[in-house]
């Protein structure tokens, strides 16, 4: 009787660990391996992608933000969950920011793979992935992690 309980406990523990690992990696903000920054807070991530962080903290270097296409699920999930801004407001904000002389808006690429390629090729690029595979993260550095709302 003891053995089945131990097996059940083991299986439950393993399942919880897998779920935790999956949740922790749901949304990641990534940068080039040579970027001296090791982590960013949620507020710093928000400021990068809203164009309000002009230099990486403690550095002399400007972040080059990489974005996914506006209509993509990853884009919606990232801005809803991590940045905390609604889609209608984000649309108006981006136009306001871009055309009022505040600065540049993130550079848009077509896919998660293109985000990784851009970051690998540019020391100060920064982007995000939603539910990435572990091997996608081998070539980049994770600066921020957040679980999705689910």
């Amino acid at each position: 009787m003891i053995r089945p309980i131990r097996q059940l406990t083991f299986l439950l523990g393993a399942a919880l660990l897998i779920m935790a690992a999956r949740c922790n990696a749901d949304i990641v903000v990534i940068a080039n391996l040579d970027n001296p920054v090791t982590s960013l807070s949620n507020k710093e991530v928000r400021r990068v992608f809203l164009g309000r962080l002009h230099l990486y903290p403690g550095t002399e270097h400007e972040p080059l933000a990489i974005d996914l296409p506006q209509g993509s699920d990853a884009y919606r999930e990232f801005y809803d969950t991590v940045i905390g801004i609604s889609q209608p407001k984000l649309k108006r904000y981006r136009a306001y920011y871009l055309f009022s002389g505040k600065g540049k808006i993130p550079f848009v690429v077509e896919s998660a793979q293109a985000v990784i390629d851009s970051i690998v090729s540019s020391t100060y690029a920064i982007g995000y992935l939603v539910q990435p595979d572990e091997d996608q993260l081998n070539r980049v550095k994770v600066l921020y992690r957040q679980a999705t709302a689910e």
Partner: protein
Amino acid sequence: MRILLGLILAFTACSGYGDHNWQFSGFGSIGVGKVNREDYQFGEADNNWDFDNDTRLGIQLQGNITERLAFTTQVSSSGLALGGEESYNPKLQWLFLSYQATPDLQLRLGRLRSSYYIYSGTRDVGYSYPWARPPIDVYTYLLQPLGNIDGADLQYTLDMSNDLELDILLFVGAVEGEIRDVTVESNPTYGATFTLRSLDWLLRYSFHIEHTDIQSEGLQTAVDYYEDLSALTGDPIFNEIGSALYAEGTNYQYHAIGGQWDFNSWGIIAEKYWVLAPDSGFANDSDGWYVSLLYHYDEFTPYTVLSAYDNTLDKDTLPLIDEAAAQYPFAAPLLEQTRAGIQSFKAKERSITLGVRYDFMPNTCIKFEVQYFDFLAGSTGQGFPLNDADPPDNATLMTIVMDVVF
């Protein structure tokens, strides 16, 4: 400005900064508008469907010259021509170098847009705001000549606790513009803008102090007559009346407060401005406000706006005109003409706007809007009666506009 352009071109030619850092973008609006009556004109809109009032196009180029030094320029063209220019004449809106001195401090030098209100910087970019146009009772036609400043500004961002940030903008420069036959030059103009923001709301206060010359070709003849009359009669009252028709080095103060708040699907935007003018001379007192309520439902954003506007030119001169007319009957025709001129600056209106914005494609939206004006104090607000008609008590402006950014 030419020197700045030369420097920018030289810097750009020498720049080794990556090509992917240059961003070319643009915006456009195509709008049709119509007033519901034949005896009134609002901007370029009258009783016939007309494209000029809300049709605009702009292009922008920006990029880094070095990691901290960036360049931005924007040219736009608008169907609404309030000055001496023709409709759709291209106008340089932005041309500046910006230098990121520290993570929180940015300096800009060149042609900038004035920062009176929340949407002053993107007044031509319809996609950046919910309405067909920013509420005209605050974003008044009278201030449009002062829409650009040639000079410099300094922006400091104070990162506060929690999600709060305070932006402080200090600026100095010169402003020049025309509205109808009135030329306005302000040199120097200086001031500050303070914006306290969180993720869901912002509060803003700005003030401008403008050392201003105002001249009107139409009124200059009357000014000359009053100087002659003063010399002829030896009575300074005529000089006092004449001085109400122009400004020379007069300090005007422009103040504005505003706020935005988003709560779930609801949004509120409100602003108020007031102009403080000296008691004598071309004393143009003006104030206005609006409150707008929005609701986001999928791709639809229905909205309403309540607003008011009140403008008066030099009330103190009218008793002087009465006094001069009683003492010098031969000057009565000129004095009555002057009274009419001063009273034509009187504008008092209240308005209510209902509209909906529909984001039917990425980067493209269409807006349907109806604005009802109630004119007070015998004025016709910011519009004009047509065909020598009596001033109307009210008017309705209908607008359909499609906005795009690319």
